[in-house]
């Protein structure tokens, strides 16, 4: 039987691998529709024929759950991630996030590339972290908000912006950037990608796929292993503990 997964577009690499592994392990076909979490959530609301929803953040999952569209007790935190400060590959030294002036100084008159700080999860995590670290005010006016993390990453790797905030997974995959700082995990809401079987799921395999996926996070399965930047399932569970599902914006 075929399982249809609605997944946040940034998960493509990871989920393509999981789908392949699932099939190799004797599972059925998996169709993944990659799009923005917001679009997917609205589509599920409008009766999309999806079996599993994988959101880029907890908010849109909560939105779907609040509408009663999630099958109770099927929600898991599939993957975890971290945010990092990146600079173009050839640039100088690390940036000390503890120093209240260092970030602004490193930017000089350049822009800080981020995903949209109001709308896109990566942007919101970044803004929360900067705020928690007391740096937001010093850089607020210099932020260039991209459509998504990938676009922010590209701004840095192309040298348009001297610094950017992206997922660790993105930084790891792009040789055009280097990580110049890591944000403390407690400086922002947990970065988790929740997955759930949807109330209207037609495929009985959906439940199994979800469980399978939760076991086989790319951190362990991938040949590149931990270097892909994903946090393991255990880390993910740990990170999520103690936070409300709906992060404050």
């Amino acid at each position, binding site marked *: 039987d075929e399982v249809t997964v609605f997944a946040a577009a940034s998960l493509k690499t990871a989920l393509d691998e999981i789908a*392949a592994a699932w099939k190799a392990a004797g599972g059925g076909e998996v169709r993944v529709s*990659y799009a923005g979490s917001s*679009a997917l959530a609205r589509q599920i609301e409008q009766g999309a024929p999806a079996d599993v929803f994988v959101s880029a953040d907890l908010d849109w999952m909560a939105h779907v759950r609040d509408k009663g569209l999630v099958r109770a007790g099927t929600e898991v935190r599939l993957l975890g991630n971290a945010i990092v400060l990146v600079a173009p590959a050839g640039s100088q030294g690390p940036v000390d996030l503890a120093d209240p002036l260092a970030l602004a100084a490193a930017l000089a008159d350049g822009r800080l590339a981020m995903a949209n700080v109001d709308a896109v999860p990566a942007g919101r995590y970044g803004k929360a972290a900067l705020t928690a670290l007391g740096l937001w005010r010093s850089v607020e006016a210099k932020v260039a908000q991209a459509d998504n993390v990938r676009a922010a990453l590209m701004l840095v790797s192309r040298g348009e912006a001297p610094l950017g905030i992206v997922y660790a997974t*993105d930084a790891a995959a*792009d040789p055009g950037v280097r990580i110049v700082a890591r944000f403390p995990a407690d400086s922002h809401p947990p970065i988790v990608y929740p997955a759930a079987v949807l109330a209207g799921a037609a495929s009985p395999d959906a439940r199994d796929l979800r469980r399978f996926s939760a076991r086989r996070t790319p951190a362990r399965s991938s040949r590149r292993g931990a270097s892909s930047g994903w946090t393991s399932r255990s880390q993910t569970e740990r990170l999520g503990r103690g936070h409300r599902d709906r992060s404050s914006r």
Partner: protein
Amino acid sequence: MGRLAGFELSAEEWTAVALSLRVAAVATLFSLPPAVGVALLLARGRFPGHAILNGLVHLPLILPPVVTGYLLLIGFGRRGVIGAALAEHLGLVFSFRWTGAALAAAVMGFPLLVRAIRLAIEAVDRRLEDAAATLGAGPGIVFATVTLPLILPGILAGAILAFAKAMGEFGATITFVSNIPGETQTLASAIYTFMQVPGGDAGVLRLTLVSIAISMAALVASELLSRRIARRIETR
């Protein structure tokens, strides 16, 4: 999906190519008749709602495509007012089907199609239509035998714009019918997906080249056809 470099397409990508072609062709063909009708109304009609109709037609251009997609989702989705009615009475389902992708592409290309046809209609020498009328042709026949042949190059120009737009459109499509491989994943959405992951550039490049090749072929074909038609109706 695997293969990120190399220029052979994966099976899934071939599917996307085929789907894009089907979506673009169906979107263009099915929107032609209403576009001609609306263009006629706008070019010739003098009625109270003229400005409103004109505005409506341009709406998909004015709105960010995701908003258009969202409106389509609300209107033509399974739960949408129009979508539900169409599904019930005509068995016509758009939501999460390739037909929905075609609808989205048709809506997005509609203003381009209408404007091209309208310009062509406004360039028609109405004295020729008068002449046809004195020879016994009623309005419908005048249109079919005089106006339509004369605006064919304009229709073709509009159609090629709409087709190209349909090949490139993804904002409204992905918002309305999502990005389901084999069903609603067009070339443009596949390109978008590649753009979202690190290292997807090779995939982007590959699919973009395919998309360009197809549209170019359509463009060249339309130019040749249009030139043939134009030669026939030259007034020089």
